[in-house]
Structures are given as C-alpha cells and as structure tokens.
C-alpha cells in the first residue's frame, strides 16, 4: 500500500466526509448553545453588584432559591400550570388526531393537518394578546354569555390569573400535541384492528386494547413537546396571568432586566432546566413499558 494513499484513504472514508460535512452546524451549535449554556451555569455561582460581576464561587444563589418561599412557590406554580396545560392539551388533542387519522379520506389528510397548523405559524404574541381581548371583562366571551342569559355579571375569574394562562397556552400548543399523536396513529397497521375485530372484540375494546397502547409513543412525545416549552413561557403569564399567574420565566426576566441580578436569574434558569429534565425523565421511565417496540 502506498503511504500517501493511506492518508488519502483516511480522508476519503465515510466517517471523515460525514464529520466534515456536519461540522459547520455542529460548531455553530457548540459556540452558540453549549458555550452560552455553560456560561449560564457558571453565572449561577457568581454574584452581581449593580453592573459589576463578582466571580467568587458561591452557593448563595442556590441557597436563596431553594429556601426562599417566594421562589419555591413560583416553581411549583409553574409546574402546576404546565402540567395542567399538558393534560388539557393532550386530552383534547387525541380525539382530533384520531379523527384525521381514521375518519378522514387519505387524500384530504394533509389538508386537515395544514388547516390545523396554520394558526400555529402566526405571531404567538398576537395570539396571546387576542386571548386577553377575548377573556376580558368587556370582551366577547362575557358578552355572549350575558347575551345568552347564562350569567348576569361578567366573569372575573377567567382573566389575569392562572386559569387564563392555562387556556391560552392550551390553545397555543394544540398543534404541538396533535401532530405527534397523529403520526403515531398513522403508523398503526390497520389490519391489526381488523384482526382484533375478527377475533371477536367490539369497537371500544379494540380501541382500548390495540389502538391506544400503540399510540402511546406519540402521546408521550406530545406530552413532552407541550410540557417542556410551556414551563419556560414568558409572554402568556405576562399578558394574561396577572399577579397570580406569573411563572418562572417572568421571574428570570425580572432578575436580569429589573433587578440587575443576572446570577440569580441564571440560578433560576438552571433550576428550571433541572426541574424540566427530571420530570421528563420520570415521564419517560414511567411510560417505558408501552414505548418499547418498533418506532
């Protein structure tokens, strides 16, 4: 074997070519994501005095975050809201995913999916603001309920609190939940269902014994896809949450922008990430039984 050929061969290998090709996005992610995340991590161990950063290592931020009831309350509220949103969104998403998968002509499926996802592609900010309009004291919801005679006075508990946050987020993240469930349902071999019927099962039991278990991977994906971003949402709690509906992201922003306490903000960010990661981990473990098998 010629020596120059050996090196040339190395550079011509599949692996070398692949790595070269993937290096631009990989390096970009390393610089723009890994480095900043690492910096945030570092920041959580420092302190800030007005505009100067004191780099002495300290665990004070964590101590404060974990002991001060203010932060604990905020974390648990964020968790509660996020879980409520997840449950509401996924439960309401399943029937429509099922509808499009099983009850819609294959030639029209992409049309339905398209219709479902269009709202998602419009400005999130505007959509949240519109919910504030809808749920307002003098807004259309109250207006129509009064006009229909269901209530006499406008409802005050539908805006500027956690309920409003849940409703708004459920609306915003609906497509995120529908799509993975849909994909999962599409993958189910229809002849499995026919086999179950052939063996004597009725429609409901077939659904419970065959369809639902096989759709679990999609449901799990939907749960994660809704849960993870909603915990860190900023805009919705800020616009419709009032004082009782703020979430962790609002506090992080406050620390950074108003209180000039970047380290504390960083600490909260790290803790939020840890919380998200551990809940996701638990969720995945719990549903492992149903997600094993062909993907």
């Amino acid at each position: 074997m010629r020596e120059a050929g050996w090196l040339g061969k190395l550079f011509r290998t599949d692996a070398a070519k692949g790595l070269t090709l993937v290096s631009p996005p990989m390096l970009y992610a390393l610089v723009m994501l890994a480095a900043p995340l690492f910096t945030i991590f570092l920041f959580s161990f420092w302190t800030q005095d007005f505009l100067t950063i004191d780099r002495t290592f300290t665990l004070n931020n964590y101590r404060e975050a974990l002991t001060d009831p203010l932060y604990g309350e905020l974390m648990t509220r964020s968790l509660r809201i996020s879980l409520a949103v997840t449950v509401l969104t996924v439960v309401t998403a399943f029937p429509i995913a099922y509808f499009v998968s099983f009850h819609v002509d294959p030639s029209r499926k992409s049309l339905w999916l398209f219709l479902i996802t269009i709202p998602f592609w419009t400005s999130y900010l505007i959509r949240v603001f519109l919910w504030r309009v809808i749920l307002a004291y003098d807004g259309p919801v109250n207006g129509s309920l009064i006009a229909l005679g269901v209530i006499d006075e406008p409802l005050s508990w539908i805006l500027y609190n956690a309920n409003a946050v849940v409703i708004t987020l459920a609306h915003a993240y609906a497509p995120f939940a529908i799509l993975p469930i849909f994909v999962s349902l599409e993958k189910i071999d229809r002849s499995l269902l026919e086999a179950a019927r052939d063996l004597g099962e009725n429609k409901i039991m077939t659904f419970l014994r065959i369809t639902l278990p096989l759709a679990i991977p999609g449901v799990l994906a939907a749960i994660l896809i809704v849960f993870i971003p909603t915990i860190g949402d900023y805009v919705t709690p800020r616009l419709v949450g009032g004082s009782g509906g703020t979430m962790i992201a609002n506090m992080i922003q406050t620390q950074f922008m108003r209180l000039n306490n970047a380290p504390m903000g960083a600490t909260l960010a790290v803790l939020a990430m840890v919380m998200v990661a551990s809940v996701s981990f638990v969720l995945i473990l719990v549903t492992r039984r149903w997600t094993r098998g062909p993907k």
Partner: protein
Amino acid sequence: MNAQTKAGQAPIIRLQDVHKYYGDYHALRGISAEIGQGEFFSLLGPSGCGKTTLLRAIAGFEDISSGAILLSGQNMEGVPPNKRPTNMVFQSYAIFPHLSVAENVGFGLRKSGLDRAAKARAVGEALEMVGLSGFRSRAAHALSGGQRQRVALARALILKPKVLLLDEPLSALDKKMREIMQVELIKLQREVGITFILVTHDQEEALVMSDRIAVMFEGEIAQLDEPERLYRRPNSKRVAEFIGVMNFLEASAQQTGEKITLEVAGLGKAEITPEQCPAGAVSGACSVGLRPETLSILFEGEQSKARLAEGVVDEVVYYGDMTYYDIRLDGASAPVRISMRNVISRPVLEVGARAQVTWDPRAMVLFN
C-alpha cells in the same frame, strides 16, 4: 478453480485475491477470477454472499482491503467510479425523476464534447437498441418497471463501456416480464458485444443467460463454470442444492485405479469414473447425487434395458407440463424426486402405489 476464459483472448477483468472487510466482517475472502472480453458472466449466490459487494468493488463504489482488480490490464486502485471503463445498471434503476427519458439517456454525454445534433442522434440510437424509440420526451416517473430498466440500459450503453455491470436487474419485475427481459438481455449483449457482469440470486436466470457463472457463498467463489457443467457436475453438495434440485442417496465407495465402485442405498451396485467426482477422490461413506430428470418411472406395459429399482410413491405434485413424484426407494431413507413429462397416454400414479424406477450410473455425481 477457474475455467478457461471464452475465446482464449486476454481477460478484460482480472480479480486477484480480492479481500474486503467491513470493520471486522470479512465480506470478500480472496476472490480470484478472470472474465473474458465479450463474456456474459454471472455472480450467483444467496443474499449476503458478497456478490453485490464484489460488483460494486469492480464499479469503484467500494474500496477493497487487499488484492487487485485489473481492467484491461490496468490496476483500478484509487480510480474513482466516474473514471472507470465500466457502467452500472442499478437494482432500483436509478432513473433521474426530474429528467425526461431522452435527458436520462443522454446524461453521461454531457462531457463527451459532442454537439447537440450528435447527442440527439446517439440518444435516438440507444433508445432504438432497447426498443423505446417513441419515448424520448416521456417523463421519467411515468414509466413502467420494464421501461425503466430499458432506459437504465440505454443510459449505460450509450457511453460504450468496456464492461456493463448489472445489479439484480430483473428482481423488481413480475415473472412474465422477467422472462421477456432475459431473452432481450441476451440478444442485447450479443448485439453490443461487450462484457456483461450480472449479479443475481435467481439460479434459473443465471443458467439461462450466462456464458459462465461464479457461484458464491460467504464471500468466496465456490465454483466457476459454464452453466451446463455447473448443473451436471457441481463440486459440492451446497452448489448442487443451490442450482436446481438434487437428490442425495447414501452410498459407500471403493476406488481401485481408475475405477470407483459404489454401493448405493435403494439402487444397488454401480461403477463410475473419476470425472463424476468433481469434489475429488472419495472413499468410504459418501453421498451420491442424482438430478430428478435422470431418474424415470417405468409404467405398466413399458420396457427398459436400464437398471431398475423399486419403491413406494410418497407424494405426487402436478405442475402442468410435468408431474413430480417423491418415491421412497426400498432400502433408502429419504425419498427421491423424479420429474416426468406429462405425456397424454401416461397414467398418474397414486400415493402409496408401488413403482419401478430406472436409473443410469453415468448420471451420478459423487460427494463427500
């Protein structure tokens, strides 16, 4: 190991002890062969035997770990596929979906320096050669499987390669289409006169089309021979079973000089020559191979001067033009399959009936 190349000319492809490793997996284990100019050569074997790997190595899409591949005497080490005098017809045909038939066929002419008129002429000739003259402006995705294959052939042949490589070209077609294309490929090869190397797992296909076949198992060439010799004198049980159907009977052999005497279960004594032992000299316990068509059933009223054996009908399978009988011979453990042409006057035996079987020692092949 190697039969002589066709016509005694210098071989166009020489494979010298070719090895290929995928990590730890030894895909090609010392392949050596010579393929002649103008030969229709097949690589035949089950899935995973390395035949496609070898084909792709000849084309240049796979590097080899050691050994050499020589095309027209030149070592192809380091020569990329686009610079080799070979062209390939891919298993999926790889017709460019965004181009028309004419654009597909003329694709490789881009760098040829021909002007537009010359290119158009060449494309026209290539299309005519494969029988697709009216299809110039047809869109690629509007073609049937058989039409796609012809476009792939035209596209490769228009570049006048020295060797045409075909990767299981007929496996995607239905049975009728396959039979038609088999004949067409033979005609095409004769017309064009270049070397064809075909990879297939279908032994019928290989037998029909090839001048010579290399049977491969697990990265090695088990036997390289003309189809007729491969069928009549397989050099191992495995090759014998892979090509067609072979009956095996237990026997014991004794060799004295040029004579080999056998005692065959179910048939009796027989004398064979060394030519009937392609696996080499054998003595003691061994297996005798007999193809179904070399045994015959003697029906009532018929007479024969051949050796006779007796047995019971185990199974009858009717096949249209043939009937296959499984006969359990007296004294043999496993039944033998016999194929009989369905002649009008011939009766069909029933399961359980006794039958007389004629056999000829000259049809025997001896294995270990």
